[in-house]
């Protein structure tokens, strides 16, 4: 199966469900269940029912450590974590790869090789919730949400300030809308749970917006209102 561009979005959990089980001949199953730990464990178990000892699972955006999540798969030594931010991944961009404690070097190597074949750069990083990019970015978004929530500036000024004052490629609040506030919230909650450190507690504003369904671009409304491209003008 392909990774990159449209295929990334297409390879959603629904697709795994529809196709029953992934084709074990594929060798590597890329599992895009960008969700909380419980859901990722459910998907790993589901993939496991149709998998084999030889099929490696590359799990996108592990919500906890790969070591922990992998135990939901019948062959945890075949589970490799990987991560990127969909909106920022250009051809030739960089994807992080994280093996868990039980992961076989061959499994990690196979995922790495496939991504390199597809023209991506890779970095092997430690096995921890959010890996590097998502973790840092979610913390930036969380702080921007706190700043907005506390009323120190409006959303446009927060985004403009970060783009012009420090050269960020996107403003943190528009970034959150593009990624999805539900994903940001899940990521922060996982970090909070894993570390037990209040440093990672998600801003209550994000929680409230997710609860109200204001999850960003896909929902038509997040920190900003988006034209969903539907029939309405």
């Amino acid at each position, binding site marked *: 199966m392909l990774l990159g561009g449209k295929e990334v979005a297409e390879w959603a959990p629904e697709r795994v469900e529809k196709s029953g089980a992934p084709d074990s001949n594929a060798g590597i199953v890329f599992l895009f269940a960008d969700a909380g730990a419980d859901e990722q464990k459910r998907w790993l178990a589901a993939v496991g029912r149709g998998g084999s000892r030889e099929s490696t699972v590359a799990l996108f955006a592990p919500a906890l450590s790969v070591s922990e999540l992998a135990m939901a798969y019948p062959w945890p030594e075949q589970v490799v974590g990987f991560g*990127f*931010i969909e909106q*920022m*991944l250009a051809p030739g*961009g*960089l*994807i*992080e790869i994280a093996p868990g404690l039980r992961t076989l070097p061959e499994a990690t190597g196979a995922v790495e090789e496939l991504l390199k074949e597809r023209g991506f*750069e890779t*970095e092997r*990083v*430690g096995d*921890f919730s959010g*890996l*590097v*990019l998502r*973790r*840092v*970015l979610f*913390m*930036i978004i*969380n*702080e*921007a949400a*706190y*700043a907005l929530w*506390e*009323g*120190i*500036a*409006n959303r446009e*000024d*927060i985004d*403009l*300030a*970060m783009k*012009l*004052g*420090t*050269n*960020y*490629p*996107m403003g*943190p609040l528009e970034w959150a809308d593009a990624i999805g506030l539900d994903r940001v919230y899940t990521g922060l909650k996982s970090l909070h749970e894993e570390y037990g*450190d*209040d*440093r990672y507690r998600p801003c209550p504003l994000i929680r409230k917006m997710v609860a109200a369904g204001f999850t960003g671009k896909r929902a038509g409304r997040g920190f900003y209102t988006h034209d969903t491209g539907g029939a309405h003008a």
Partner: protein
Amino acid sequence: MLVVGGGTMGRGIAMVCSLSGYRTTVSDLPDALPGIRAEIEKFLADRVKKGKMSAAEMQESLSSIRVEGGLDAAVDADWIMEAIVENLDAKKALLAGLENRMKGDAVIATNTSSLSVTAMAAGLRNPGCLVGLHFFNPATVMPLVEIVRTCWTDENLLKRAFEFVKSIRKFPVHVKDTPGFIVNRIARSFAVESLKIVTEGIASPHQVDRIMRLGGGFKMGPFELMDMVGIDINFSVTQTIFRAFFEEPRFRPQLLQQELVNAGRLGRKTGHGVYAYGTGGKQ
């Protein structure tokens, strides 16, 4: 236009104002004046060399900037920019002196990045005459200015500040007087969370930089940026914001920053920070 303090920021702000057509005076202590003049000439000569301005324009610009001691220029300035050392007592003493000299409708703007504008304004006869205008380094290049308001700042002054920032061809944003304003507060996570990731052995500085650049679209990785800004400056800003927020754990500094500072590895300026720098750049 009067700029008090001819250090890097003060000079930069003076250049920006002068290049936008403001008659500008830079004031500093007598000993510092020749150096300030030389730096301004160097900056303008550099622009001429790069073809950004003609020699005639340089002469015009030079003649529109005065460099002098004392605060006499405060008497007829519409805008007074304060860019002296980041010390509350020094700034309060200066502001009191300026308030005694300036016109009734003049505005004082402080370029502080780490002090409370409110604490600076308190004690003035008219605390509403002070606003924060936070420029970024280098002021001649960075397009953003944060307009910092206190509980005394009225709408009228905010409008004037907004128009002024636009008149010097910068982009203004509004922010309440809170530690780190917008940028220095939110940007903490970029540096500190990256330091934490390295401390925990999840990735090396080099890996984090590559990931943030090639995966996140950032122009510079956090460690490259820290080396450029100065490890000591980054550490000091982090500590200030951490304390100002009553030790909120989101702003907690990292031991690794302190260790680098203790080791004298302050970044590019010392030839060694997170990375070592030779004559050919990063190694």
